[in-house]
């Protein structure tokens, strides 16, 4: 059986029993976007590479990903974002539970989605097109919340915009994005 043509879940099962080639395959699939996210938040290529390695080593060591709770992409993005934001927070800054975005409620089991069947380039093109359909205000608020870890109160203050407006923009932006990408995430 050629592991590289298997679904993420199947490759992950191989990884859990110590098959290091499975780690290489998952890195080939997600290393690029993990690095992209780490670089966006950390703004330093070396730090982004360090974090990318750390994220995949955590996957290798702990194997905590549960395929019944969401896609591997979602798990890796949540882990990367959480670790990256933790790093940029200054000492003594208040600790908020960033990982909640990825951990809140139990979710339904998933089956392989069109997302898994698409290459990184295809995903990038699809998501970039979806993002351009959002009004600028919605996209900006969503990006600020996701990449900076700022609360919406902090975003409202920074943009000098009422909190209610910021909340509506973020929620509407996310809902619209979900509708556009609905077929893609399954």
């Amino acid at each position, binding site marked *: 059986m050629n592991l590289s043509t298997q679904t993420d879940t199947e490759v992950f099962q191989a990884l859990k029993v110590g098959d*290091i080639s499975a780690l290489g395959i998952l890195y080939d699939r997600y290393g690029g*976007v993990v690095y992209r996210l780490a670089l966006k938040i950390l703004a330093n290529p070396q730090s982004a590479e360090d974090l990318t390695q750390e994220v995949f080593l955590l996957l290798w060591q702990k194997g905590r990903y549960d395929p019944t709770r969401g896609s591997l992409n*979602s798990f890796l993005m949540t882990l990367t974002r959480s670790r990256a934001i933790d790093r940029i927070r200054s000492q003594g800054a208040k600790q908020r539970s960033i990982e909640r975005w990825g951990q809140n409620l139990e979710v339904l089991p998933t089956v392989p989605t069109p997302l898994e069947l698409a290459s990184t380039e295809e995903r990038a093109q699809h998501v970039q097109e979806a993002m351009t359909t959002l009004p600028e205000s919605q996209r900006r608020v969503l990006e600020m919340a996701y990449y900076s870890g700022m609360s919406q109160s902090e975003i409202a203050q920074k943009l000098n915009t009422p909190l209610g407006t910021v909340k509506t923009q973020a929620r509407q932006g996310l809902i619209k994005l979900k509708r556009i990408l609905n077929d893609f995430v399954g």
Partner: protein
Amino acid sequence: MDMQPLEMWEELVAGYVLEDLSLEEKKAFDQLLQERPELVAAEIRRLKETLALTPYALPDAIPSPRLRNQLLVAAEQQTAQVIDLSTVASRRSVAWLSWAGSAAAVIALVLGLDSYRLRQELQTTQEQLAQQQSIVSMLQQTNTRLVTLRPSAPSSEASGNLVVTPSDKDAVLVLKNLAPIPKEQVYRLWAVIKGKKFPCGQFTPDPKGTVFLKLPMEEALVKAPLVVTLEPSLSPSTRAEGPMVMTTDI
């Protein structure tokens, strides 16, 4: 459900995922969750998956190509088993004798020892040896190649090979008579490509100076000259600044 409640429902769940619900909204969300737990959970999953796709829209950026190998080496090192030959096995059955004999012969070939003497040194449990069987079976394949490493200093008696089977995902480094080192130091193996050293793994010999280390198979391990250096264990694993201890003939 008419349009207005549907929009409110979606907004509540989006607010939950974005963690911006007011106290009043939180109560409404909890009520919704009690009434329609499966629907709410499914919507939460869709929104989380959507958020996790947004990094694909970031400007294209790729990590250094060497990061992949670095990652695999680091992962392999966490699980690598250093086999202490002095603790390998007393035999308890005919079948066991036969297997241990063939394994010892291959190991002896690699280490340049005679198999009889090596067998005399085998003292450990059958269970431990079973764990090592994967390495030995690789050593027994006919298309296995040996890349010889020799000491850099004339006074050193270190010797050994990198054992490479092209069809296998792992290579095995087998060294003997390597000088013992304190905890603050490690040996590191590098592939030298166009004058630059690329990290392939790090190791510490056992008290007898023996090393048995599995490494992820890389083309460079066969084609590029290899060197072993002695480095501070806390130094970055990508930095080769210590003295050269062994090299290949290439």
